[in-house]
């Protein structure tokens, strides 16, 4: 198994307009690691740099301590699944999957065995003789994955591989890809802008914005303890309340326009710091209690979304969203809301 280390990697296409600003990143061996961010944040650029399809302006890429920064793409053993799949239409499924092995001059017997195994993994053994254009989108995606797996890469790179599939197929393929990566003990880097995909599949996630690494951590960490407001909103819906830190009897609390909140973890914030509180919609509940971590709000209306119901409330100047079970029923009017200390996330206030 291979670990991947990026040291101070930077890239610009135009002078003065960096696509990636220098940062370090380590992907552990056998990890399914996600690069998550909006379009244009540099995540695909980073993946192409890893594949050797782009040269970084500065920095190093190390596979198991071997510097591969100047290796040609064909020498890296970092097989990539392209967003467009990049399957060759003039070749059959078998020939597509066998391509890398043939380029490496593997024997006919090895080619047959490896291609068959790769196609079995993606459940496409029956389609070996078919031409690519005759396959469905989902099948093409799996051929692209089989093609990358067949060469037994040190690192598997996946560039938004599910973006062209319909929702149901996407859900199925998420499970499949994770199964394959884990079964084959691969180190995989997966690029996506779909937070559900990242949260449901990743061992760890790196969130990128405007070429800057915002945060790295497990799905629970980046969702539950986002480093900043961008990460918080990119990973999920959030209610934000501006406030000021105030220590009472040795306990740090945050005073906002709607009430006082006591977070379970206030991090390194100190008395007088201006902060923003993140309250996830699913972490706010209706209550009859009063005191810290509760506040009054006017329920305006709600929408039914199948698996849950979304309520829209107004607390002072703040519009809030609250998620409750789909079975809940409420009339508009005055309510009290509460949030547990462990669900109060304190972020640095941004201008």
């Amino acid at each position, binding site marked *: 198994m291979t670990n991947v280390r990026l040291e101070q990697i930077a890239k610009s296409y135009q002078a003065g307009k960096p696509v990636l600003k220098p940062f370090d990143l380590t992907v552990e061996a056998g990890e399914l690691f996600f690069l998550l961010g909006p379009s244009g944040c540099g995540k695909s650029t980073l993946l192409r740099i890893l594949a050797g399809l782009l040269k970084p302006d500065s920095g190093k890429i190390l596979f198991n301590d071997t510097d591969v920064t100047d290796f040609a793409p064909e020498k890296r053993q970092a097989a990539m699944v392209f967003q467009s799949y*990049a399957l*060759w239409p*003039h070749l059959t499924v078998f020939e597509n999957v066998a391509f890398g092995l043939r380029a490496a001059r593997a024997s006919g017997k090895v080619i047959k065995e490896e291609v068959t195994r790769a196609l079995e993994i993606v459940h496409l053994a029956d389609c070996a003789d078919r031409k690519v254009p005759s396959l469905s989108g989902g099948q093409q995606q799996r051929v692209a994955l089989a093609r990358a797996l067949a060469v037994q890469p040190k690192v598997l790179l996946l560039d938004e591989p599910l973006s062209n599939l319909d929702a149901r197929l996407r859900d199925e393929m998420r499970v499949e890809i994770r199964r394959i990566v884990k079964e084959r003990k691969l180190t995989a880097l997966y690029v996506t802008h779909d937070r559900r995909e990242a949260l449901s599949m990743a061992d760890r996630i790196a969130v990128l914005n405007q070429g800057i690494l915002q945060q790295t951590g497990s799905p629970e960490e980046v969702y539950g303890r986002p480093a900043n407001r961008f990460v918080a909103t990119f990973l999920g819906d959030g209610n934000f309340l501006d406030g000021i830190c105030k220590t009472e009897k040795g306990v740090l609390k945050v005073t906002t326009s709607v009430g006082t909140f006591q977070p379970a973890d206030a991090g390194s914030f100190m008395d007088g710091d201006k902060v923003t509180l993140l309250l996830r919609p699913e972490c706010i509940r209706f209550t009859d209690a009063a005191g810290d971590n509760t506040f009054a709000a006017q329920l305006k209306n709600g929408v039914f979304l199948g698996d849950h119901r979304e309520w829209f409330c107004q607390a002072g100047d703040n519009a809030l969203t609250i998620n409750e079970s789909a079975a809940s029923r409420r009339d508009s009017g005055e309510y009290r809301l509460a949030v547990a200390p462990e669900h109060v996330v304190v972020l640095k206030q941004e201008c």
Partner: protein
Amino acid sequence: MKLRSAGSALLIAVLLVFFSLFLILPVYTVAKDGLDPALLAEIFNNFLYREGLINSLGIAIVTTFLVTLIALPPALLYDRFEFPGKNWSHLAIMAPMILPPFVGALGFQQILGYYGVLNGILASLGLERIDFLGGEGKFFAVCIMEALHLYPILYLNLVTALGNIDPAMNEAAANLGAGRWYRFRKVTLPLLKPGLLAGGSIVLVWSFTELGTPLMFGYTRTTPVQIFNGITELESNPMPYALVAVMLIFSAGLYAVSRMALGGGASAAQTKGVAGSAASPLSGWKKWIPTGAFALLTGVAILPHIALIFAAFSKSWYQTILPQHATLLHFENALSHKVVVPSIINSLQYSVLAMFFAVAAGLAISIVTTRWRCKGSRLIDLASMLPLAVPGIVIAFGYLGMTVHYRWARLVFDPINNPVWLLAAAYAIRRLPYVVRAVTAGLEQTPVDLENAARNLGAGAWSTMRKITLPLIAANLIVGGLFAFSFSMMEVSDSLILAQKAEFYPITKAIYELSQILGAGPRIACAFGVWAMLFLAATLASAGLILGRKIGAVFKF
């Protein structure tokens, strides 16, 4: 837009009559008279005719091979790299298109002739002169001259085909460990098949049926030249009909075989899934390599034309490396010769008419095939591309045959007393595929909803066409018209065969006749060729300015 009105049905009927009259009937006339088993047997039994066919086939194969060798490297360089002067290099490499190869042959003879430039260099080095253009040398001279003229067609097709290949196709291969050459063989080349197929088949048929270049080099043992020489005895000798019929069969066969040999290509057509260019910048001295390669190729390709210009300006250029004594006399003589000025007027007349025919027919065909898509539109689209597979010499001969066989045709298309309509129709039908492609490209790039919006707001079909469609595709119409006009001005096969009296000679036939005059004749022909070259260059430059890089779409079939 559905075909609803009687007017639409009428337009399709008119188009079908147009093709029947100007394309199918001439071919049928040739086939009817030429496909006589006894005549065909004589062609294959007669050594001269057999040799003519073999030579023509040889010219087609060697020329197509040379064209591929010449066109592929610059197309790859253009697609893969950013380099200084890229756009200018792209335009410059198409320079040989500004003259028909038969005029370039005049310059080529000046370079490779026994007393030409190359032999002048050999002599100055104390070496023996070599008769490059003697014996089989003429065969290769014809092939090289045609290849230097035709490579831009394949180049443009290849550039377009490469542009349609998703860069990820190559990146995926590199990513899986394939080296540069392996990627080229296994990925790029197979995906290029549609471009190779499109350009290669045109070059193959074009060079197989080329009349002017072998005629200029005096290489008479080719079928087109044998047909040309047989025109004078057409009423008494049916052999030219049989030769034309054989040429038609061979052309269709070559076209079909080239498509089969290149393997359909449908699956490897457009693979571009995402926007993006594969061109990567080169740094340091390496960035000048593509620029140098383009400049070298352009230089070699326009060498015959440079020699033509020098010859036109020189008082004498005989046994010397460079021409001796500059003069404008040949230009004066060219303009004062009795066939020259009338031939310019004639060419203008034929070409303007041909341009209007071709643009009107091209517009109608493009609307039927891209907007209506009704029954019969596929047939019309196919018919509009047929002139590419049917050689000009066949069509010209077909028209001539029609005037011999049908009284009505003799009245409208009298080749002896008034060939104006005959030549205009022949020119128009030959250039129709280029006009159709130019206009179709415009219509395909114009969202149909722009027209629907006009209809939705109450505009009628004609009003929508006039106020919305035509202004939006004006550039394409102009370019299609310019192509039809300029290539009609330089048309060779139809001109040599159909213009029989000096008073009706177009420019190309006048150049040919002048080149045959002993003494200063070839020099005057060169001077006239320079006039023609300037004229065509101006036309193509206008087209290039209007369409920019999209000019390649005109030559994509």
